[in-house]
């Protein structure tokens, strides 16, 4: 590795990497006319056996029954999939609505309404959830929970208590060698965007590759063992792909940002191991799990074996520290259909629900799996990251059984110039900010 000849040579630290993406790969799965009911079925099945085992500890005296077995006035516990009936939820049928309203539809960020209503469903049927114990704004469709309550005379189920699965069990965090090793997270590079700032991005790359700063900084850079690009790396002008034949000038506009990204990634891959995840704006499929970006898009970078194109969600182990993350769609969708203080709360909820993306397939596009629900979180990660958020935020979450999880919201780099650095030794986090503005 050729760095500055005058300066001291730093050896980049190494770490053991193991990809756990296999469950997110669609591979030979086909669309054979299957529907979404199967994934809900599997989800309910898996989560129910889990919840049943928890219920024994939670409320051992209360009988457990199915929605069908409910009897008026009898207290019991039911387990099922939540369904939130939402007034404002956009529907594909809206296109066909009779009276085209004169005022354009107001596109809101959030589709909640005070009248939203929760319903619990299992294979046998549905029951309306009543009472004030559950705030509909907290929950979303697709979630599996256990509820304690009783059926009222109106046929509703009056909820008195709720049991969520809680944080999944976690592997012991390795003690490690006590040395600092860093992982850099970045998302929303948006190469090719109108507001893109090539210099800012180049600064980031130069910093990671050790081309910037003094020896101290270079020594820190050498401790970066991996870079994770969490989605939205390019921005392709929408509408270009809708037409049929592309004019040659459009062809270049289409491939230009990708070529540029390849150049940047090549620089990175030459210096450090690199994971790239697809995001909502990348040239990848739309439904979760998004499949790896095709190698043919990156003729330069893909020549290095340090370059790993991976799925979204992405899961891996680095020196036995377990990482799990997405490019942000799961959290953004929760933000549209439920309410929380900040994105970290949403992240925490998904962990407690042991489900990465409960709103898939209802409002979040998803492949119609028939035999598995890849979004179930069976083992608690040590680091849980989500890309393309508005602000950098982090928190250390402690579970009731001693689980320790670092939650990270990775901001959009294009808008904030911020990359996140995680120290694997103590799971501590800090940011790298790059600015090309001269004023202080």
């Amino acid at each position: 590795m050729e760095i500055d000849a005058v300066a001291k040579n730093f050896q980049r630290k190494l770490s053991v990497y193991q990809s756990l993406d296999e469950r997110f790969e669609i591979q030979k799965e086909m669309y054979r006319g299957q529907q979404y009911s199967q994934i809900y079925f599997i989800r309910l099945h898996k989560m129910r056996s889990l919840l049943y085992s928890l219920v024994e500890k939670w409320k051992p005296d209360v009988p457990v029954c199915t929605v069908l077995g409910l009897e008026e006035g009898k207290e019991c516990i039911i387990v099922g999939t939540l369904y939130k009936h939402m007034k404002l939820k956009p529907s594909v049928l809206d296109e066909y609505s009779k009276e085209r309203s004169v005022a354009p539809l107001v596109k809101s960020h959030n589709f909640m309404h005070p009248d939203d209503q929760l319903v619990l469903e299992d294979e046998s049927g549905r029951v309306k959830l009543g009472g004030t114990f559950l705030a509909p704004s907290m929950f979303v469709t697709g979630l599996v929970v256990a509820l304690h309550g009783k059926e009222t005379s109106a046929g509703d189920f009056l909820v008195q208590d709720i049991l969520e699965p809680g944080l999944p069990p976690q592997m012991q965090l390795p003690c490690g060698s006590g040395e600092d090793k860093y992982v850099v997270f970045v998302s929303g590079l948006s190469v090719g965007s109108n507001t893109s700032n090539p210099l800012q991005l180049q600064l980031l790359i130069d910093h990671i590759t050790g081309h910037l700063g003094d020896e101290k900084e270079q020594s820190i850079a050498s401790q970066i063992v991996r870079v994770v690009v969490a989605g939205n790396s390019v921005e392709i002008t929408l509408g270009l792909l809708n037409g049929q034949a592309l004019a040659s000038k459009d062809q270049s506009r289409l491939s230009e940002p990708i070529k540029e990204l390849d150049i940047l990634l090549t620089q990175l891959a030459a210096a450090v191991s690199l994971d790239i995840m697809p995001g909502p704006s990348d040239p990848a499929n739309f439904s979760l799990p998004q499949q790896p970006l095709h190698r043919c898009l990156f003729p330069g970078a893909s020549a290095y074996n340090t370059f790993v194109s991976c799925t979204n969600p992405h899961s891996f182990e680095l020196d036995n520290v377990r990482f799990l993350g997405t490019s942000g769609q799961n959290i953004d969708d929760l933000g549209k259909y439920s309410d929380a203080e900040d994105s970290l709360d949403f992240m925490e909820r998904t962990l407690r629900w042991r489900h990465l993306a409960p709103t898939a397939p209802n409002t979040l596009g998803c492949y119609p799996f028939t035999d598995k629900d890849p979004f179930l979180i069976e083992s608690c990660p040590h680091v849980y990251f989500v890309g393309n958020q508005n602000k950098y935020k982090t928190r250390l979450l402690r579970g009731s059984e001693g689980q320790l999880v670092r939650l990270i919201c990775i901001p959009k780099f294009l808008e904030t110039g911020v990359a996140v650095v995680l120290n694997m030794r103590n799971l501590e986090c800090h940011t790298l900010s790059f600015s090309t503005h001269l004023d202080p």
Partner: protein
Amino acid sequence: MNNGNAGKKRGPASSGSEPTTKHQAMIEEEEMDEDVFFDETLLQEEEEALRNAEEREALASHLSKWKRPLLSAAYLSQSQSIIFQQLEIDYVIGDSHKVLMPNSSGPAAILRMFGVTREGHSVCCLVHGFEPYFYISCPPGMGPDDISRFHQILESRMKEANRNSKVPKCVLRIEMVQKRSIMYYQQQKSQPFLKIVVALPTMVTSCRGILDRGIQIDGLGLKSFMTYESNVLFALRFMIDCNIVGGNWIEVPAGKYMNATRQLSYCQLEFDCLYSDIISHAPEGEFSKMAPFRILSFDIECAGRKGHFPEPSHDPVIQVANLVTLQGENQPFVRNVMTLKSCAPIVGVDVMPFDTEREVLLAWRDFIREVDPDIIIGYNICKFDLPYLIERAEALKIAEFPILGRIRNGRVRVKETTFSSRQYGTRESKEVTIEGRVQFDLLQVMQRDYKLSSYSLNSVSSHFLQEQKEDVHHSIISDLQNGNSETRRRLAVYCLKDAYLPQRLLDKLMFIYNYVEMARVTGVPISFLLSRGQSIKVLSQLLRKAKQKSLVIPNVKRQGSDQGTYEGATVLEAKAGFYEKPIATLDFASLYPSIMMAYNLCYCTLVMPEDARKLNLPPECVTKTPSGEIFVKSNLQKGILPEILEELLAARKRAKADLKEAKDPFEKAVLDGRQLALKVSANSVYGFTGATVGQLPCLEISSSVTSYGRQMIEHTKKLVEEKFTTLGGYKHNAEVIYGDTDSVMVQFGVPTVEEAMQLGREAADYISGTFIKPIKLEFEKVYYPYLLISKKRYAGLFWTNPDKFDKMDTKGIETVRRDNCLLVKNLVNECLHKILIDRDIPGAVQYVKNTISDLLMNRMDLSLLVITKGLTKTGDDYAVKAAHVELAERMRKRDAATAPDVGDRVPYVIIKAAKGAKAYERSEDPIYVLENNIPIDPQYYLENQISKPLLRIFDPILKNASKELFHGNHTRSVYISTPSNSGIMKFAKKQLSCLGCKALISNEDQTLCSHCKGREAELYCKTVANVRELEILFGSLWTQCQECQGSLHQDVLCTSRDCPIFYRRKKAQKDMAEAKLQLDRWKF
């Protein structure tokens, strides 16, 4: 609410499109009384013993919790007056009551009023002593002796005609009364009439026949008589004479009624009383409210055999879902479903499984008896569900089933009827009479009150409730039934939903309020409103008014439909164009009613031509109408029709004022229903006079009305164009660009809406001043911009205040015609939106071009191209080959189970076929088209579907619209898919081609040819973008279907072809699979 009745429709005149419509006859079924004899032998209930006693008990206790509230002691001791809201009135023939009618004997007509008290008790009130009668004019010089002789002669003739009758005396009395005929102006106030009272209602008709044909009277020879009021139904006669209107409150004071010795009905309160003791309360104040009557909404499911529509002789009834709601409550208090074989429980619903169909049917009968609904609603119950149940019970030989009415031994009667009316068209239907219960079939109501492109429950509920309904094909129903208790539960849920939707429609559209108010306003029983035409409503009001004035209405012999046509409404020549200046619209408020009031047009003010000279009327006392008729003015004789109209309009004004004051939502609903009913009634009076085969046609009146209407439109046009000129001190010359039946469109030339409104108001006031009251020209709205296509076809933005437009208003432009595909509607709407609201004509043109290009390039969503037609007969019965019939035949050959049957709607698309193939040969099932990649025929859609409506819109706007829109660059590239099932494809060999340039590639592992290798990234992006879009679509479509279905864990079964996303969903699934395959060719 776009109510067909409530709109500006005026009887016959509205349906003509020509300026001078030749009016055809209005055919309405003759109203006839039909005597029902009371069957004294109560049905033995011994068959009941066949059923297991224990089970019966269980069922009885199950049902008993839905019983009506128990009677209070005051009711039981008969110490309380009974006040109830009556819903249904009919009569039976029974022995006259020995206590109440001590002086008569033998059979007599007993009227029955069914209703509900304020506490929710059901009431059957038996009214005695009211006798059927009619009038004839008394021949001059007939004295009391002559009358008794006449009585004897008539009695003997009647005896001959009614030989089978057990009545001791047919003609009870003949009285001389002073009355006057309503027809023609007469100077003498009254003349003698004979009131002939007969024993039974049907004898009115036979007696009329005898008198019509002529009767031999000593000294007078053979004389035939004109009869008066001999065509009034007995129940209506009773209501008129007792001042009872449909759905009002009746009081029978304590002591004036006696409880029946032996209950003949299932009602809680059954009693006899005299008709003279009845107090009828006007629907005001406390008595304008509604009693808590019970509304049953139900739906049945039958297990059809493969390929057949269910027939009662073969196919069992497998489920009946019931919901019972109390009027005024928003949730049903009974929800249950009766199923054949076991069914898994449903939350909040009583599931009642039975082992045999017989038990299901009998349980339903018991349920009806126990719950005792006052109104039975459902969707298509009159034509399907009810007759099916009855015929099924017949097939199973369950004799005791069809006792569903309130009379203990009264079996329901099924009668095939055809109902035809000018306004509603001809409909065949089965009439099932369930005594004492009102049937309210939502399908009939929809067809009557709304003009929709489809009347399936699915499309009606998506129209009014904005909800898609899951539709399970009847071939799947049998499979679900033959599964396990879970699949039957699935079916039950579906069945319940079908029972619930009619109730929701009823609530949403306030039908109960509107129909009860209509009954109250017009004075006819509620059941008449659905089963009979418009004219009975006017006749009822006319009879009531005539009675007050001692007038009698002649029973005019029916005239042929060929005679009596007159000139209809006028339409001023439309100056077609796109107006970008505000157009003010001046409307005559209730034009025809006002004309009748202003000029005192009535039967009784019409002067016969020969009388005109004879009577020597002073010219200042008569009006000669533009059509040449002479009517006297109101100082000589006030007309009855104007009086009725004045009362209706005054009542409407009052109702509207009260509506503003009202706070209580139920009261509001009542008042709104009332003002609507009043408006519709006022407008139907004119139509009544023009109905040539109606009850009392009088073309002199109707032609005078339209002639005045024409004159007024012309007059308005003249005045506007004379007054609003630059010479008159106005900025611009006003121009009348169009005038319809009762409105005139004026372009004042001013640029702003506000100024146009100003001038519009000024013009309305000025011109109103020149008319006789109450004719009034009103300024209501401004159109800006305004696209006038031709007469009765226009579109514009509708402004009632100068700040913001209210809506886009279109008339006569293809948006609802059902034989058009959805594409036409979308295209027209979108274009109008762009032209009128966005004011972006180039944008609209571009939109059309893009759509045409999409169509040619096969990028169109197939559901937009589907055309639907109802299959009313089988192929052989159609004289001309029709596309949908041919297709149904072809589909039957492919698979008889899923092929459409008679009664189904057949959806199809037009496909490309060999040159010269007839249009009907080119129809194809959309699903088949999707599955086999069959190319559609874009040319057909261009020429036969979208071109005409589009040119209509664009012709006034663009020069060379046709050239501009349908020719040019956007029509040059065409894509035709290769059908996968055509003959030639069997011999074709499939080869992979380069995804970039379609060159063939030999090596299967490659995706691209060597030339395209360099564009790899770009081409990959294209493929993946395609996948993206399909994934988005796939996700949103299939989750929507889960939503409608109301379950996440079960597969979507729905095959509702009415659903707009049905084909898209299917196509998305297929396209997705293909796109995924293509993506997989890019090996990682």
